[in-house]
């Protein structure tokens, strides 16, 4: 060619218009500078209201485009303003998931090598087999609901936050499944099918299954995301994981189960932060905030009622271990406080009535369910 060629193709080899334009320049970073997460995430799912000149070019049979704002009842003046606080992209996601897998594997291997499962208290073994075994299905149900939900968000930031949430939930459901299979083989006579049988038929678990099935059946993807992280998790998920298993297990000679469970608690902290950030943004919306509040309040009323019913029905579990290291009333109080604090964080009323000051039992539980469903949260 007649024009002058340069010998190196490295940055800085030549100065010319645009030669120093080395940042993605088509979006507003949330902070002073774009984070790596923002660079690899923002605008990858395009929007006709931003740069998509020719609009979506395929539609569903009914005319709905590839992505639609109508897939949720919630509205937002700028869906692109959302950033997930955990800033996950592929590399950080695999690093974190892989670290968790390694941690669990080490704990389980060491416990088994030390013969720990054989020393679990017999009553506790039954809890693991029947009830931790049942709870793994709840985790799986939430994971599949989120896997569906990640299709529908209007931006990449929303969808990827839901996708990683699904990934964490489905991993944890498998963690529990494989953990029980492994320690079960050391214990002997451990019925690996019992957990599912309890999940499907044990009255203790039926309200929980009902709550999960309602989340799975919700057609609004943000209702699913909300119900998982802002309702079910604090009221049932944490109640069972932290309020029961993690507090009680050590006293039954079981140090490994709390370690396995702890991974889900850490996962939830991140998923909760992501969800709170999104719903707080939607409630702060200058145009749609109030309508969004009404909608979230109605979702809370629906799913909160189901979750409280599920939580209260689990109460007999606290009586099963031989050593009573925790009690249900305190655990439920913490869950009640937790969900109320989450509600305050985003701006909805999530105060649930306290358990009646009587000896906790079926009657009290029923009263609390009624109060929760018809009480302050059910406005």
């Amino acid at each position, binding site marked *: 060619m007649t024009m002058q060629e340069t010998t190196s193709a490295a940055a800085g080899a030549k100065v010319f218009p*645009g030669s120093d334009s080395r940042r993605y320049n*088509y979006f507003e970073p949330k902070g002073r500078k774009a984070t790596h997460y923002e660079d690899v995430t923002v605008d990858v799912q395009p929007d006709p209201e931003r740069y998509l000149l020719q609009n979506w*070019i395929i539609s569903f049979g009914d005319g709905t485009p590839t992505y639609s704002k109508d897939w949720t009842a919630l509205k937002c003046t700028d869906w692109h303003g959302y950033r997930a606080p955990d800033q996950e992209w592929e590399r950080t996601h695999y690093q974190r998931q892989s670290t968790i897998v390694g941690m669990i594997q080490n704990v389980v291997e060491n416990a088994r090598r030390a013969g720990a499962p054989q020393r679990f208290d017999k009553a506790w073994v039954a809890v693991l087999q029947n009830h931790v075994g049942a709870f793994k299905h709840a985790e799986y149900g939430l994971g599949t609901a989120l896997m569906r939900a990640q299709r529908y968000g209007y931006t990449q930031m929303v969808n990827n936050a839901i996708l990683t949430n699904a990934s964490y939930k489905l991993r944890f459901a498998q963690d529990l499944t494989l953990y029980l299979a492994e320690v079960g083989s050391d214990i002997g006579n451990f019925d690996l099918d019992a957990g599912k049988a309890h999940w499907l038929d044990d009255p203790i678990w039926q309200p929980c299954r009902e709550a999960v099935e309602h989340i799975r059946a919700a057609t609004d993807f943000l209702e699913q995301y909300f119900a998982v992280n802002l309702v079910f998790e604090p009221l049932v998920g944490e109640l069972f994981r932290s309020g029961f298993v993690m507090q009680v297990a050590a006293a039954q000679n079981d140090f490994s189960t709390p370690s396995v469970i702890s991974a889900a608690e850490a996962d939830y902290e991140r998923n909760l932060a992501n969800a709170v950030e999104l719903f707080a943004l939607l409630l702060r919306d200058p145009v749609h905030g109030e309508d969004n509040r009404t909608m979230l309040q109605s979702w809370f009323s629906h799913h909160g009622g189901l979750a409280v019913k599920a939580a209260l029905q689990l109460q007999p579990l606290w009586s099963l271990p031989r050593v009573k290291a925790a009690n249900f009333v305190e655990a439920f109080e913490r869950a009640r406080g937790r969900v109320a604090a989450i509600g305050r964080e985003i701006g909805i009323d999530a105060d649930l009535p306290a358990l009646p000051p009587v000896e906790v039992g079926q009657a009290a539980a029923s009263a609390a369910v009624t109060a929760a469903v018809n009480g302050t949260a059910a406005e």
Partner: protein
Amino acid sequence: MPDGLTLNKITSQKGIGITEAARRVADLGWTPSYVKEAMSFPTDYKISKAPRDPMKQVLRSYFPMQEEKDNRVYGALDAALRGDMFRNVEPRWIEWMKLFLAIIPFPEISAARSMATLGQLAPGDDLRTGFTMQMIDEFRHSTIQMNLKKWYMENYIDPAGFDITEKAFGKCYATTIGRQFGEAFLTGDAITASNIYLQVVAETAFTNTLFVAMPSEAARNGDYALPTVFLSVQSDESRHIGNGHSMLMSVLKEPDNHLLLERDIRYSFWQNHMIVDAAIGTIIEYGTKHRDKNKESYAELWHRWIFEDYYRTYMLPLEKYGIKIHHDDVHEAFDSIVKKNYVHKIAQFFSAGWWANFWRIEAMTERDFEWFESKYPGWYDEFGVWWENYAKLSKPGSVPITFADTGYVYPHRCWSSLVPCVIREDFTIDEVDGELFTYASEVDRWTHKEAFAAEYQGRPTPAMGRFSGRRQWEEVYDGWDLADAIQDMGFVRPDGKTLVAQPHLSFEEKDMWTLDHVRGHTIRSPLLALREMTPQQRQAHVEEYRKGFKIRRV
């Protein structure tokens, strides 16, 4: 230590086998009894048989494996910088990465979204882990590719075009072709989109040219980053191919599905050919400086990967299940590459509209001519003069080649694939819902008029997608001055006047075209012009168009 005793034997524990683990994990699912789940994703297919997971993987082995793959990728990128890769890389190649990497993250993430569909549609839970892994894989691919692009932007001599990448993706006439590919993964009939178009055709057949053949060419041009990232991506594809095949086997069991399968395999194969071969064929053949005559041409690669590997060993065996396979389409696709110069004509089109790009295309040289002639005899007669003209008109102040007196006829665009109708003799038109459309071939016409419709061969197909949007870029900018359209798209460098696109690889400011150099020329939509013609004029125009053109030397 006694003979035969090893540390592993001392510490080994009885575990559960992979088959048992996969079975246990699949047993996590149940049939809801309190609330019936509404099927959110429409399909006209019936699926009653639960697909089986042939890979039998669980997530606890998946995450560490992926992390290790990532470590290798990112380690290699660091090593490439330490080895000063960009000092020796071919700019001709990296420029095309501005286009390729603007497009590909969107199809990837679309594939992630489409796993929602398959996860819900597939009966049972056996394949759920496979779909879950694929969902996370696609999230991986999308963000790892965005990272690679950022890395090029930070380290390659000319970052312009990388810096506007996702905005450019929304504006460019060429990226819309890629969007037709990506949107097809997740819109319309769920099985058509996510199983047949994405998994059975795009992933099983065409990722071989996308993610295997292209990285080889990258390495030949001194780019070690693209192979590192994309071969890692391709290593995930085998899982997706397994998912797709298993789902297909489940769909096949229902004889009622066979007609739809015939439709969808036909549409998907042809459109993948039109889109992927246009883009990747051009990048491999025209983005390279490596002209070793012993290396395979795109036509040869296609024959190996698509014809031999896919058509003969994957598509053909479907016939034994009663699925009609359109052999003539496969042969026609191959002929379009080897006999009808499809890839060369697309490259010619990309260069004809260079000013609307956000990457640079340099002229082919004598060395390139020789290689093309040896691989595609007769190439020089048809394309040599074009590229000589292109070189001549690459200096700022020349007439943009689109408007020079070369004899080139700006092509109509295919309403189905959105690729220009470059094989002139195959050009066809038809009316759908009372409106006139243009198509690159008969299969494209069939795709729009018959496949993407509410009824197929008398059978209602309400779930099937529809073509929508402002599909033709030329229509959007019809009547605009070139300079105004370029400015509107934002394909201008930070000085506010120099074009991002250049018809050469000179990095001297004096050689670079500005808005003023292209002002005074008007964009016209061939389709709008065609619609305005009388039936007689239109007939004459179509006949003339089909005759093609001969390039004159300027």
